[in-house]
């Protein structure tokens, strides 16, 4: 019986149906199934299949993103239940991410935020045109282990350097890893400003994040 719920949820993720995922998650909870089992036996297998299909070339970024949306909506129902049982899903890391001050481009940054979240990171997305002071205060507030910054313009990428400087002045630089991205950003730039890493796309960002967290 439980097994049928889990199969359904796995299929909901693979087929990319957020509404069905939410409805079936709710039903599974009402049927008395433990939230941790719903995650581990229903949702995570679905994400894994989506990941495999992406690796094999059958699925694309939109499939990953829709599956991530399914997962996130299901977790909104499940997290209160986990907290009530004093349980939590181990997070891969706490990340603060945003586009720097003076820059309102968001699609790349949002893709990275979604992919990190889908891969188990707890992501605080500050949006676009983020004041440097806001990056610093949020990093402190949530105990971030990683900061990700995006800039699309050659004229705004210099703000990434300013934020790293501000982290140093606040005595926070050694407490977290910094990764940067965006069209004008290069490895050379990341090295120059003292960032810990740079990724050219959202998939690369997840790989980098995992590597930085384990170092």
């Amino acid at each position, binding site marked *: 019986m439980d097994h049928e719920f889990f199969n359904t949820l796995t299929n909901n993720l693979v087929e990319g149906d957020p509404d069905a995922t939410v409805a079936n998650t709710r039903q599974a909870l009402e049927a008395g199934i433990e939230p941790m089992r719903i995650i581990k036996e229903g949702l995570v297998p679905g994400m894994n299949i989506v990941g495999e299909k992406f690796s094999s*070339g059958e699925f*694309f*970024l*939109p499939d990953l993103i829709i599956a991530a949306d399914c997962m996130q909506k299901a977790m909104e129902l499940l997290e209160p239940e986990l907290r009530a049982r004093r349980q939590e899903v181990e997070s891969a890391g706490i990340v603060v991410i945003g586009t720097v001050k*003076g820059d*309102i*481009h*968001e*699609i*790349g940054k949002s*893709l990275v935020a979604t992919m990190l979240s889908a891969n188990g990171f707890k992501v605080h997305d500050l949006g676009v*045109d983020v004041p440097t002071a806001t990056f610093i205060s949020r990093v402190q507030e949530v105990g971030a282990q990683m900061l990700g910054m995006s800039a699309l*313009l*050659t*004229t*705004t990428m*210099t703000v990434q350097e300013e934020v790293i400087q501000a982290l140093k002045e606040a005595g926070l630089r050694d407490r977290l890893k910094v990764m940067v991205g965006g*069209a*004008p950003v*290069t490895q*050379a730039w990341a090295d120059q400003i003292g960032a810990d890493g740079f990724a*050219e*796309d*959202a*998939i*690369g960002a997840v790989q980098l994040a995992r590597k930085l967290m384990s170092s």
Partner: protein
Amino acid sequence: MNPPLSEETLLAMHQSSLRVLCETGFMIDDKEATQLLCAHGAWVKRGRLCLPPQLIENCLQDCPKEVVLQGRAEKITLGDGGLYVHNMGGARDVYELTGGRLRPATCRDVAESTLLMDALENVSSITPLYTPRDVPPALMAPAMFDQVVRHTTKPINGPGVSTPEEVKVLSEMARVVFGDHPAVSLGASPVSPLNFLGPIPQVIMEIARQGLPFGPLPCPNVGATAPMSLAGAIVLQNAELLVCLVLAHLVHPGLPIIYCGRLSVLNMRNGAPLWGNPEVGMMAAATVRLGHHYRLPVNVYGLAGSGFAPDMQSGYERAINAFLPALAGADELSGIGEMAGGVYSCNVQILIDNDIIGAIRRVLRGFPVDDEALAVEAIEQAMESRRDFMRSPHTRKYLRNNEVWAGRLGLQESGWESWSRAGARTILDRAHYEAQRLLEQHQVPSLPDEQIKALDEIMKSTWKQVEPG
């Protein structure tokens, strides 16, 4: 073009854009622009501003059909039926042919590439090719304009601008050289989809107040910031263009506006832009048709590739993407020098692109089909004499009239043997040596001393305003 863009199809796209602006609206938080648009019938719905179709139709009616760009010595009129071509703008790096490395671009690279393009017959107007990384961000746009205006007498497309302050500084610099009514175009981009938050409305309004020709540059990506259907992406781009057009027009009725398309597709495996895909050319051709439906001059890409080196991939991709809109009647093509979706550039790419455009221009020129061209008599004469056409006056006449195109780089050795003996030069080699030759020999008259001094003063005062401490 398959499916053909009939008048009905164009009308359907136009009506769809009107519906998007009337039913969905766009995001904007600039008070002055919002008030102006509302005074002309716009309204807020679900936090977005909506435009009445009639406002858009009225603004379209009043837009000039031609846009003049005037340089120090040359002028072009977009919309006169000719094809004009310019280069991509704001590349981050220079691609070094030896070693295949990238290095950050400098003011000197802006200057040198401008001088090179001034020498090339198929470059009609010049945009600052690089964003110089050896100046602070606040000085990048002024430095770009400064280096371009010193090194060309062709018309100039100013750099893309992001703040009204940049517009003011560039206008002031343009007036130093061109007088009170400079015909230097400026471009500005909203964020797709339909995001006009932040300074972009003020940028548009300032360009309009300054009276400069305006080229709005929406850059939606199919499937990410625009619908995955190409038709839907064109509808979205058009909606964004219409917002720019209406706002500019309300501030300055009759402002010269160039309808600019910058649609691209993404690699859906990793989200990277794919400027070399044929959809870029297809959507550009459709954009030409739609802009012409509005009787506006149209500027699209153009020479665009995804490859990371100036190689065969880049060659065939950009030729396809330039040909499609050219055949559709584009007034202006961009992309000379573009590499890897606009991230970097090099002199060799500029030279090769000059030849690609030369070939395209040759195609657009067509060939005459009159009695003389049909050559019945010339054939008779040839058969009556030595049975070849080499000696024929008919041949000499058509040769002198450029019936067969001779590109700058295309003339080469007769066969493998002579080619090998001459050094086995590829097109990259020929482009490299030709670029060097032109840079050594080509000269552009200097600006008068008082203009150079005035430009330097503007740059100094701009720096003083933003200098830290």
